């Protein structure tokens, strides 16, 4: 290898390292601070898990944690059902109306969160729906649907259109044909879409902030409220937990997608 090539590769690596440092240094710092015994953030007072322990003894935090998980589970499940139905409906449409509908369903994802949040809040107030768990849930379902659709659609397009007919041909009723053949065939897309929706719901702050009412907090809104009052080290611990959870979930999404991709490629080579 020539010197120039080595040097070019060195620069590339340096550049990537720089990007990672800018992206992850703050989070890295946050995670380290969550183990810092000293209440003053300025110096290292020794390693402790104390902040994590007191976090789990904080009733408000645990309630927000419960809300967050419940929201994420219900909203991603509902979004998966609606999104799957939408994909099937859209794939039977003609080209033009399909593109139109896809664009429409993508709006909540592309739109600035703050606009989505404010407009949902206005809608709920106009309809005189009391802000609380229900409204936050509706909001989360709304912004989760496009993630589900975008994960399932490519999978569904690759599906052999005759799979459903083959099942009918072999004696299955339309319902059996769907649940026994079509659904398992697109399952990887549904799983990754659902996981992504779960993640989105888990770490959403802005939309939740605008659509929630008194007494209803999720972990992100709880952190925001606490930080406004003054920094409590427990919040570092909480943020660290959320970050690790989201990171883990996104890695799972990738694995599901890669797994189905590899399987498909193996099929094509054969």
């Amino acid at each position, binding site marked *: 290898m020539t010197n120039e090539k080595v040097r070019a590769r060195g620069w590339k690596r340096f550049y990537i390292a720089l990007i990672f440092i800018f992206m992850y240094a703050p989070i890295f710092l946050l995670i380290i601070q969550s183990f810092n015994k000293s209440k003053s953030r300025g110096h290292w007072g020794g390693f402790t898990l104390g902040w994590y322990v007191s976090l789990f003894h904080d009733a408000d935090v645990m309630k927000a944690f419960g809300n967050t998980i419940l929201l994420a589970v219900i909203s991603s499940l509902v979004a998966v059902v609606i999104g799957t139905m939408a994909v099937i409906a859209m794939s039977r449409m003609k080209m033009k109306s399909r593109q139109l509908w896809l664009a429409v369903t993508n709006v909540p994802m592309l739109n600035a969160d703050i606009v989505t949040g404010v407009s949902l809040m206005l809608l709920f107030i106009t309809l005189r729906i009391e802000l609380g768990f229900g409204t936050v849930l509706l909001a989360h379902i709304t912004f989760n649907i496009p993630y589900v659709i975008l994960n399932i659609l490519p999978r569904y397009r690759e599906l052999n259109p005759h*799979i459903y*007919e083959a099942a009918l041909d072999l004696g299955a009723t339309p319902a059996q044909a769907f649940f026994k053949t079509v659904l398992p065939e697109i399952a990887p897309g549904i799983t990754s879409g659902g996981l992504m929706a779960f993640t989105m719901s888990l770490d959403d702050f802005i939309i939740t902030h605008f659509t929630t009412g008194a007494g209803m907090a999720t972990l992100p809104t709880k952190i925001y409220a606490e930080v406004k009052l003054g920094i409590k080290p427990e919040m570092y611990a909480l943020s660290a937990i959320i970050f690790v959870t989201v990171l883990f979930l996104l890695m799972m999404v990738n694995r599901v997608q890669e797994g189905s991709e590899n*399987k498909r490629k193996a099929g094509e080579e054969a």
Partner: protein
Amino acid sequence: MNKELIRLEHISKSFGTKTVLDDLSLTIHENEFMTLLGPSGCGKTTLLRIIGGFEMPDTGRVLFAGQDITNLPPNRRQLNTVFQNYALFTHMDVAQNIAFGLSIKKKSKSYIDDKVNYALKLVGLEGFEHRQVTRLSGGQQQRVAIARAIVNEPKVLLLDEPLAALDLKLRQDMQYELIQLKNELGITFLYVTHDQQEALTMSDTIVVMNQGYIQQMGSPEAIYNEPENAFVADFIGDSNLFPAKFIRDELISIDGAQFKCVDRGFGENAPVDIVIRPEDVEIVEAGHGTVDGNVTDLIFKGVHYEMCIDVAGREWVCHSTRPHIVGEHVGIEVDPFNIQVMKKPESEDEEAITANE
């Protein structure tokens, strides 16, 4: 002839403004290997899908063993389909794919196991039970698709261009296997293809279709040797397809040269089309044949040589095991029996496809 099994009565089908099938009637008998043959867009696949129950005809009826099944959904028809791209369930292994129909019908586990083993044996895939279908080759996937259909003991197996995706050698092997399979099972095969060689090799009956009409129906020999119109003659195999004049019974003239034939009843001095298969053109010494010409092209084809012979400006294609070099002056002779006279097409639908090729 065996008992009638499927009867199509006056089937028409349009998609939007395009008419795909136009008042088509057809009878399929028990234990028959029938092939629907035609260029793409001729309506053959639509016809198969109507029989399978995946499309509804706009008009007409489908009768199965005397019963009207026109409105019966596919899952309640006693027939199974082998789809063009196999349509295997990729989330199941080979055995689960084959067992699908039987487990839907809630058969006992031991019955299913027996049938799956029998089907695997029949298509030569013993020991493949637990392979992933995505890991199989095209030919193996094809066999799974066939096994998956036949375990349900259908009265009729519908096959939609099942060999189209396979390479030539494998395709030829599978043709023989399909014939054997049909004989073993003793059921009716309805086969769709655009490959005339495939149709000639396997079928008991060939139905040549074009533009939603049946152009001709008959045994492979009849279709090949006695095409009823220029479309059929041109679509089935290589042919010399010439305009000619029917002078009187048993005598025609091609570009002024008179040939004896065996056909009668086309009138007197009437314009007709004639077809002569390349292997039926006999090359003799110049002056000893009916007409003379010059060899303009010589190609070695393996089994035979293909020669083009220029006769008074018209090109004759000729197959022979003995080559004649380019430029040689030769005579041409045709056995009267090998000249097939056809009436001129009366409508566009009957016209040869050469025009748009």
